[in-house]
């Protein structure tokens, strides 16, 4: 359960709209059910009261929307960012992708977001209502079954179980209590991959990536993917493709994307959240983060807005490529 509630956010947003500090509010809008929030822009107090919501189903990271919104808005846009979202925000600032002066950032605390897919795995399908109570979620189904109690921990999205930080690294004002950077154990999942033999690892990724349907949701949601025209959408690039043409192409897309965001990915986990095929794409990126940490020293993308990412920053202490590329497979 979140410590700051919808009403607190609506009141603050309404006040900032009223005194002219901001001309629009970027937040989450209530949907048809208790869990299907949509990112939306609100411009009046009435709109906020009618639809704005902040609760355990507001997982969407709003920072990437600022790319467009801060360029087109007259005045400032208020955006609510959770701690992990603020890392994306900083990274976008680092890359000069958003107009900082047109954004008013309110940091909101986050206790971890629930994921409807995690919940369905416990309760089954046919969710009529989800009550958020102090002790956990109470899930009512459409059938004659008794409601199912699900703990917040069990309902949580996988990415939130290894949350790296409850601390906001960028904001104009903060609601609620500030948190700390956490010892997340998020690299344990990478260690599991590294412990595999090359053949096992290949089989693992083949199994995962062969489900890819090339919907591009991972790329389109990614705050690090901000190219005006992606190479995979560009008919003149020679590598444009709209469907997986075979096992190889699927790997091409995801691996090239992972290389492209390496050193810039903040590990927000949106890629895995949106994947309709449940592919743990964040693990590819996290492996790169882990390698960068080992090779160039600890680095967290988005920690501040003025860092030089290690892969574009030459120092005399940089290891030689031959020290780094040892390869993991005996091809002989």
């Amino acid at each position, binding site marked *: 359960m979140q410590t700051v509630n919808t009403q607190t956010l609506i009141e603050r947003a309404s006040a900032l709209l009223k005194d002219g500090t901001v001309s629009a509010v970027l937040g989450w809008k209530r*949907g*048809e059910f208790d869990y299907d929030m*949509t990112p939306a822009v609100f411009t009046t107090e009435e709109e906020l009261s009618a639809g704005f919501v902040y609760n355990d189903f507001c997982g969407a990271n709003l920072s990437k929307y600022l790319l467009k919104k801060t360029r087109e808005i007259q005045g400032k846009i208020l955006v609510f960012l959770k701690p992990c979202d603020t890392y994306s925000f900083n990274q976008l600032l680092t890359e000069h992708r958003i107009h900082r002066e047109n954004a008013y950032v309110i940091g909101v605390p986050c206790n971890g977001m629930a994921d409807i897919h995690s919940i369905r795995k416990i309760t089954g399908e*046919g969710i009529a209502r989800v009550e958020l109570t102090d002790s956990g979620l109470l899930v009512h189904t*459409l059938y004659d079954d008794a409601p199912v109690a699900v703990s917040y921990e069990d309902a949580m999205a996988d990415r939130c179980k290894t949350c790296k930080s409850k601390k906001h690294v960028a904001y104009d004002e903060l609601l609620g209590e500030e948190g700390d950077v956490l010892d997340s154990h998020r690299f344990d999942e990478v260690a599991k991959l590294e412990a595999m033999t090359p053949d096992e690892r290949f089989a693992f990724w083949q199994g995962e990536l062969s489900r890819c*349907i090339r*919907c591009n949701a991972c790329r*389109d949601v990614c705050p690090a993917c901000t190219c005006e025209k992606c190479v995979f959408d560009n008919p003149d690039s020679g590598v444009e493709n709209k469907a997986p*043409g075979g096992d190889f192409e699927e790997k091409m897309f995801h691996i090239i994307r992972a290389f492209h965001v390496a050193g810039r990915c903040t590990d927000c986990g949106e890629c895995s959240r949106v994947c309709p095929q449940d592919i743990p794409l964040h693990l590819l990126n996290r492996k790169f983060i882990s390698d960068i940490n080992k090779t160039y020293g600890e680095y967290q993308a988005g920690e501040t807005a003025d860092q030089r990412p290690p892969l574009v920053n030459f120092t005399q202490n940089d290891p030689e490529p031959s020290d780094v590329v040892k390869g993991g497979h005996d091809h002989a």
Partner: protein
Amino acid sequence: MLKCNLSQLDNLFAAVAEAMPLYLPTQGKNGANYTKWQSGAVWSNTCNTQKGPKDLFFPQSEDLMAFKTQGKSIEIIDTRNEAEDFAVFGVRACDVKSLEILDRVFLSEPKDSYYASRREHGIIISLACNRPTENCFCGSFGIDASSPNGDVTCWLTEDALYLRANTEKGEKFMALAAPFVTECDDTAAEAQKEKIGKIMARLPLADLKTDAFGGGKTEEFFNSPQWEKLSESCLGCGTCTFVCPTCQCYDIRDYKTNDGVVRYRCWDSCMYSEFTRMAHGNNRNSQKERFRQRFMHKLVYFPENNDGVFSCVGCGRCLAKCPISMNIVKVMKALEGEQNG
């Protein structure tokens, strides 16, 4: 009506699979999907598969033909295989209807021979939905989840599967099933239908209406100010189109190989910036226009050209899968509200 005790169901599957490829929903890491039955496969009775049976008739990518070059000569190679009979078990009412919608596109002249051949050989064994979910709204499109179409219709109770053949192709399947079934009356199936009807009536989207939409409504909705708001957070990904059982747009490309060219087609998405490029470029330059196209096609243009039939079957996959939870239900309610308000 025939009855197959559930203890005999795997034997029935095995017998069918012996005679022809049998596809049915099985549980995978990300939910159920249609897979080819093999010994030991466990059929999943989940309400809806992640992707519909569309792939079995209209695969995401397929080769259309090949060209082999030698010097200045070009040989055109027909890469089609004569499709063999196959059976698809457990198809829900919405997905059966989705194939009828695809038929209108691919089987109208000039017929798409690739699709037509698979349709001709595919036997659809449908199954009533015992547990429709909150995302289901097939009823809004006149589909009865308790009584699906198909070559064979099935109903499932706690201990048995009840089967009724509807077509000649269905009889072919029934002949294979014969050793595992017994004759019975339709009491159990009727009771199951009634149970399903009660759940359908209390689905959260049961009252979704389509009256506001249909052919001839282009003027009314095309310039609606709602599109701006509805599309503002759309990522422009292709998830909704790729999980949709009725989306049928594709692209055709040539792929160069060492000694020739392979011409293939693959699904395309109206949500993509490179969709339907024309000599002058793309005719829909903003995500708002692309978003509008998808819903106008389903709710207005398609019925206009197809005797009032909408190209949505209310399967709810886009509701379950959209990364930002924007979908046709929200669009319909917003546009309808505007009309009424």
